[in-house]
């Protein structure tokens, strides 16, 4: 690898790294992809994919003693189980710091494919309510793009990813190029009609998910098998991941080199050419230090890790971090404020059930602060995700009873309930920020320190969400039994973003409208770090569209000799 020369280096192999590798190689560039974690080969290395609970040492629940010791943060993730634990980082080996008074649970997957193996797969377009949000209420800095800039890239990305969903014609949640939707179950379908009758602006629609409802033979991907164990890895390739989709496409070009176990420590900056001149990394298996050069660099390490690399790349000419002449690098980080707004029992469907495990829930798109500012104490939006489900044996843990009658009761399919989890816009605030800690990780690299707190706008949104969720469900014949309005810790939405925000002005933003550094022309950051606001939708689809758009722009700039 010594002094190897590439056209482009992509740092990270997750959702956006995979896209960058695909787009850049397909444009004819020779690309090096660096991944800090281990190699995971599609279909070969999904070790627990087909195992039953009785084939696992701790029955799929996992070894709490081990988790307390080595996975103390990751174990809080709902997708973290004994089946999936090898798709998450070891917290003892990958420490980070939290500024005093900050709570932030940082869920990470350091491996080939990154969090594309463990993501929630929800794919939502953002609208101009979102891209115009900062300008409208004055939080953060104005996005230098609008929906029209991104719409063709959403089209292109959805076509390749395979997103199933239902066309609803909502301006706040634009329709995309959808595969046939997965259907609502009987309770969701009934609640959709009942809620719509009372609240014409509130619509239950099926989650838009990157699970194929039709096979993609040209990509070697089968349709979803309705197992809903996606985070174990899917040998059918039925959900979109780096392994199932972008990596095979990039490899097919013959122009991709992948190096795993490569923790990038810094980008080397050449003050003469004002370009990144090399990427440095540690081979985490041998502790060897290595470097490679390229004409352009794409940072796709995951929002906070991309910022981390830039902070660690400070130099004499850029003492506050690479690409940080503005001083805003690391600031305005966000993560959706989220909580379970309502859980309700739903009578009247005792003789109905479903078959199969649908790998998505429902969504109730944003209805607050659209054309009219109607939020009480907040200026942006929230949206509900959740679904109706029937209980199984675990309900017995809360039920009195033992013996034959108890066993007979748990034999039956349980009663229906409906869950609504709220995700609210996270306001971009300068005080929520990333800095370098003085503490080092086990490889000697300064750790990241996270300062984060939700503010009064988020709390107001969650309070409204709890009230409205209860009102909607109770009016539709359900009985709400519990609900919360206090947010989970920062990070628990697993939508952490920002820190290298896009903006018009090089003095107040890190990236321009092409996800390109204002300061360093051959540097692009196209993961969550680039986000200037959070919206309340799941962000991955937007990261993908922005990545594809940035790749196209970068290739044009290379061809024109601008960079």
């Amino acid at each position: 690898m010594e002094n190897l020369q590439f056209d482009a280096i992509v740092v990270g192999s997750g959702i956006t790294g995979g896209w960058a590798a695909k787009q850049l190689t397909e444009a004819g560039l020779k690309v090096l992809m660096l991944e800090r974690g281990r190699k995971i080969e599609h279909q070969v290395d999904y070790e627990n994919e087909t195992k039953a609970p009785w084939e696992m040492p701790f029955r799929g629940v996992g070894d709490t003693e081990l988790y307390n010791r080595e996975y103390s943060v990751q174990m809080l993730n709902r997708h973290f189980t004994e089946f999936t634990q090898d798709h998450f980082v070891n917290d003892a080996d990958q420490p980070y710091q939290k500024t005093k008074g900050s709570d932030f649970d940082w869920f990470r997957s350091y491996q080939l494919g990154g969090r594309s193996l463990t993501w929630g797969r929800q794919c939502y377009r953002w609208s101009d309510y979102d891209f115009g949000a900062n300008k409208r209420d004055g939080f953060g800095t104005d996005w230098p793009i609008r929906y029209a800039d991104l719409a063709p890239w959403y089209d292109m990305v959805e076509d390749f990813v395979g997103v199933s969903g239902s066309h609803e014609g909502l301006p706040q949640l634009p329709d995309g190029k959808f595969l046939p939707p997965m259907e609502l179950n009987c309770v969701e379908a009934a609640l959709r009609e009942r809620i719509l009758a009372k609240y014409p602006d509130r619509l239950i629609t099926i989650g838009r998910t990157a699970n194929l409802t039709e096979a993609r033979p040209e990509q070697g991907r089968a349709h979803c098998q309705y197992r809903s164990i996606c985070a174990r890895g899917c040998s059918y390739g039925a959900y979109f991941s780096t392994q199932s989709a972008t990596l095979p496409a990039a490899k097919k070009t013959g122009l991709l080199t992948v190096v795993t176990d490569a923790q990038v420590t810094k980008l080397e900056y050449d003050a003469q050419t004002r370009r990144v001149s090399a990427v440095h990394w540690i081979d985490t298996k041998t502790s060897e230090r290595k470097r490679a050069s390229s004409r352009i660099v794409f940072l796709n390490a995951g929002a906070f890790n991309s910022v981390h690399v830039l902070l660690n790349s400070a130099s004499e000419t850029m003492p506050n971090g690479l690409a940080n002449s503005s001083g805003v690098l690391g600031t305005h980080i966000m993560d959706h404020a989220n909580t379970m707004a309502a859980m309700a029992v739903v009578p009247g469907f005792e003789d109905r059930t479903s078959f199969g495990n649908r790998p998505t829930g429902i969504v109730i798109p944003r209805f607050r602060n659209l054309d009219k500012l109607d939020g009480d104490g907040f200026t942006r939006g929230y949206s509900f995700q959740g679904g109706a489900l029937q209980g199984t044996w675990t309900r017995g843990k809360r039920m009195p009873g033992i013996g034959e009658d108890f066993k007979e009761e748990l034999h039956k399919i349980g009663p229906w309930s409906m869950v609504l989890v709220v995700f609210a816009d996270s306001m971009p605030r300068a005080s929520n920020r990333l800095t370098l800690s003085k503490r080092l990780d086990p490889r000697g690299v300064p750790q990241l320190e996270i300062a984060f707190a939700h503010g009064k706008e988020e709390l107001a949104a969650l309070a409204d969400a709890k009230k409205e969720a209860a009102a909607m469900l109770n009016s539709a014949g359900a009985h709400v039994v519990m609900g919360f309005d206090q947010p989970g810790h920062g990070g628990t939405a697993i939508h952490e973003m920002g820190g290298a925000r896009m903006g018009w002005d090089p003095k107040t933003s890190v990236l321009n409208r092409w996800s390109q550094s204002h300061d360093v022309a051959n540097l692009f950051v196209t993961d969550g770090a680039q986000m200037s606001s959070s919206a309340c939708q799941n962000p991955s689809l937007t990261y993908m569209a922005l990545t594809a758009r940035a790749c196209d722009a970068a290739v044009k700039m290379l061809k024109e000799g601008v960079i």
Partner: protein
Amino acid sequence: MSGTSSGWTRRDFAGGAALFALALGIPAAAVKLTDLDAADAPSDRQRKLIAEVSELVIPKTDTPGAAEVGVGDFVILALAHGLSGTRDPVATGVITPALAPFRRRDGSLSHLDWLESRLDHAAGGDFLRRGQDEQLRLLTAIDGEAMARGAEYSPWVAIKGLILTGYYTSEVGGSQELRYELVPGKWEPDIPIQPGDRAFSSDWTAVDFG
């Protein structure tokens, strides 16, 4: 035998578990008990007790009961490794005088010691020597008290939960008593429930939230 007062050694226990697994055709991984510290090892009596208690909770019917599928040993393993928060320190405020003797130095409760003592106390002697109907009556009372709305903190809640986990994640509980379908292959959103339909142990959303 080693010098432990219970007469138990790690090797005996591990060997027993492996033989037990062999007899039932359960993969050894599922009953791996070899990593238990001596302090977490149950006495022979406790091992027998938790097996019988699990059978009282989930008895043999037209499918095997909890004892037959080795749920007792799973509960021992689970308690030793702190599943369901059983090795977490218990808040001082919820420690009643009845629980205090079972508090470990780390603040957690020794669930097995508590269970043994609680059952013998309820039986006014050796619980294991009571007839099955009497055992069922005594345990039903303990269960009713612990599971009642607004009840005081009781270690029984976690023990019962682990018994259920042990049973319904076993091959018998998961795929004979309930239905297990790893690859449904299709999604049918609305179908009628037929009389006698069994719930799915492979409905992962239901397992998480149901």
